[in-house]
Structures are given as structure tokens and as C-alpha cells.
């Protein structure tokens, strides 16, 4: 069985290490915050100017001056800090943020990512995505392995306008966990009930299978 969005988020949460500063993108990445392992202390960065993002507020705590980068109302927690947008991207650019989790429309087997523009459709803008992928030390992409037509989104080369080059380090899709290596996508774990043959059939980019490939624990 392919993973649910929640299971993808839960698997990515296992990559979090104690003391990490983490930026979570919109969509599946946001769900990662729900699965931070016990005993692992991470600080969430919101690029509109907050470190130490807390949970959504209760109705009577809603504050129009306190939102995340997805414009949702949020809360602070003890230890939170506010700053302006230049400092926010400064800390990203300077490599202070340990991990960025993003969604993607396409990922290439050399680590290129496309997630901001579909030509001939309305272009809404890249927001902070280009800054994040250009600078983050470690980028994990959370995505569906194929598009609704069943076509692979793990490609030899991105067909959509790219957001950044050679930047993705790891992909967690609904079918498996892959490192980006010089040989292309390296399958480390497959989802329970998903065969390696199915993953091969649904991966258009170069694919190698890790010697110690195993079934994912979900």
C-alpha cells in the first residue's frame, strides 16, 4: 500500500534530530510537526519572521499579528523569537537552519527541484522556495511519486521551470525513501506492500537499489 500523507510526514519526522532548527513548507511538510519523536527537541522556523512556532491557537488566542508563512494563525512558545524578513532569509542563507522540508511537483535524479511554476497556468510566485532550496544545508522533499495521470514525478530532468539546482538530498514519496546520489535516486526503503518492481516502473529517473534496502517501518 502506498503511504498516506500522514505516513509520509511521520517518516520524515524520523529524520529530525535533537537540537535541529527546521523549516517546514506548506502541505505535507506542515504535517511533520505532528510527528516529532518523543525526546527530540526541534525549533520550527517560519520564514515570515519567527523561530519557535507553536501550535494553532485556540479561538480566544487568535492574534492577527501572529501568522505563519502559509498565513495561518499560530502561537508562540517559550523561547520564541521574532525578526524581520532579511534576518529570516539571512539565517537560512548562512546555513543556520538544519533541515528544510518542501513539497515538489518534480524532482530530477541530480537533485534539481521544480515546485513553483506551471507554464501557461497562472503563476503565483515562488515565495521563499528559491531562497530555501538555494541555501539550505539539507533538503528533504515530501511528494507523491506520480501525478494523477500515473506519470512519474521522479525524473531524469525536470520538465517544469526549476526552483533550484542540485539541492535535494532526500525524497520521501508515497512509495519509498530515496537518497539523491551520483548514481541517481537510491532506494533505501520501500513502503509496506509496495514492490521494488513497482517502484522501478514508476521512477523515470535513474534508480539504484541500496544493498541494504528494507521495508519501511510505519
Amino acid at each position: 500500500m502506498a503511504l498516506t500523507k500522514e505516513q509520509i510526514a511521520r517518516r520524515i519526522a524520523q529524520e529530525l534530530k535533537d537540537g535541529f532548527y527546521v523549516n517546514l513548507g506548506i502541505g505535507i511538510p506542515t504535517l511533520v510537526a505532528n510527528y516529532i519523536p518523543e525526546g527530540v527537541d526541534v525549533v520550527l522556523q517560519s520564514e515570515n519572521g519567527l523561530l519557535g512556532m507553536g501550535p494553532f491557537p485556540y479561538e480566544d488566542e487568535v492574534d492577527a499579528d501572529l501568522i505563519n508563512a502559509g498565513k495561518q494563525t499560530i502561537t508562540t512558545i517559550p523561547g520564541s523569537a521574532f525578526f524581520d524578513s532579511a534576518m529570516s532569509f539571512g539565517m537560512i542563507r548562512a546555513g543556520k537552519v538544519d533541515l528544510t522540508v518542501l513539497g515538489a511537483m518534480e524532482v530530477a535524479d541530480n537533485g534539481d527541484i521544480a515546485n513553483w511554476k506551471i507554464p501557461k497556468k497562472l503563476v503565483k510566485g515562488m515565495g521563499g522556495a528559491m531562497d530555501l532550496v538555494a541555501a539550505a544545508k539539507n533538503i528533504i522533499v515530501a511528494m507523491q511519486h506520480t501525478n494523477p495521470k500515473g506519470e512519474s514525478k521522479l525524473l531524469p530532468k525536470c520538465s517544469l521551470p526549476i526552483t533550484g539546482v542540485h539541492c535535494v538530498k532526500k525524497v520521501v514519496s508515497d512509495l519509498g525513501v530515496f537518497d539523491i546520489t551520483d548514481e541517481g535516486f537510491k532506494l533505501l526503503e520501500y513502503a509496506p506492500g509496495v514492490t521494488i518492481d513497482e517502484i522501478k516502473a514508476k521512477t523515470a529517473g535513474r534508480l539504484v537499489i541500496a544493498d541494504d534496502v528494507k521495508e519501511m517501518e510505519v
Partner: protein
Amino acid sequence: MKKVVAGADEAIYDIPSGATLMLGGFGLCGIPENCIAALVKKGVNNLTCISNNAGVDDFGIGLLLRKRQVKKMISSYVGENAEFERQLLSGELEVELIPQGTLATRCMATGYGMPAVFLLAGIGTEVAEGKEIRNFNGKDYLMEMAFDSDFAIVKAWKGDTQGNLIFKGTARNFSPLMAMAGKITIAEVEHLVPIGELDPNCIHVPGIYVHRIFQGKDYEKRIENRTVRPRS
């Protein structure tokens, strides 16, 4: 030194059609509501607006778009606005999309008196087209220019009569950077206080950058995406 003006109409009285404006805010958070309303009333047009977002149909910069007062938007993300979409597709509106960190840092460069900065964002993408690339320590960077903005308009939480500003929460975002970057900077504040009342340790923008300040009124502070959790 007289920086305090009576209200938004007086603060924006000399903004002409064709001006380039910086407008603080992220989404609808921390936007200069009073000045936007005054610009709509004044009816100036052909504006170039540098702002992270373009508001929604009936709030924020969306109010200026609805009256066709904007010629060009320079932003990082412009979703959530149907009228914007219509004007963009019909070619009435020009849009320059730039990465959010690049936008912030170009504002910062202006306020710090630096002509350009070298940034990684956009290398290898269409954002790099036509830009000078410089290699430092084996890595390519785009040369990104400081902005040239006639006016900057921001909303702060507190300000004093000397123009010192303090922002609240994530309403800070681009506003301090833009406040520092305007040739003329206008600040509307929720609480205008006499000098001496703000703790000098807590000032986000020193008054040297602020030319006009006024006590704002009737803030709606609309929330774009109200998200709450239930009390269990």
C-alpha cells in the same frame, strides 16, 4: 523637528501618479491600512508597488488594484486575488516575481546604502536570466540591485513623535527593511506616544529613517487564513 502629521491624507499628500512605493506587510499581516485607503481616495495611478504580496480582492493592495491604480507589482507571491489574476492575464498589469529572501535583502541593501548584493537564490533558474553572475569561493551568485523607491509606507505597532518604531509579532516582516529604504518613509502606528516613552533598547527602526508618522485609526487587521484548534 516635526514628523507628526494629522493622518493618512496628509502623510501621502505628495505621492504622485507614477511613483514607486514600498508597502510593508506579509499577506494581510502588518499592512498600512490607513495609507492604502488614502491612496485609493486620492486616486493616483500608474503606481509601481514593491510588496511581498498583492493583498486580496477587497483588502490591502487589492483595493488599489481594483481601482486600476497599479501599473506594476514587484512581489514574491501574488496568489489569492482574482482581480489581480484578471489584470495580469489581460496584460493590464505588469508583474515582476522575485524570490522572497531576495526581495527582503534588496530592501535591506537600500536602507544600508549598498548598491547591490550577491545572492544564491535563483541560480540556474529563469530568475537568473539577464543578471550578472559572480563566482566567490567556487560558487556562483547573482548580483541583485538595491531598490530605488520614492516612498516607503509601513505600519508599526508603536511609534514616537521622533519616528522611532516598534513592530509586533510577525507583523514586522518586511516593514523595518522598507522603512529604511524609502526616500520618504511614512509610518502609520497603532499607538503614537511622546518621545521618551519607548525603551531605546527595543526600537526596531530608529527615527532617522522615518519622515512622517501618524496615529492610525479603525484598524481591521483582517486574517487571511484563520486556523484554530479545538479545546479538548
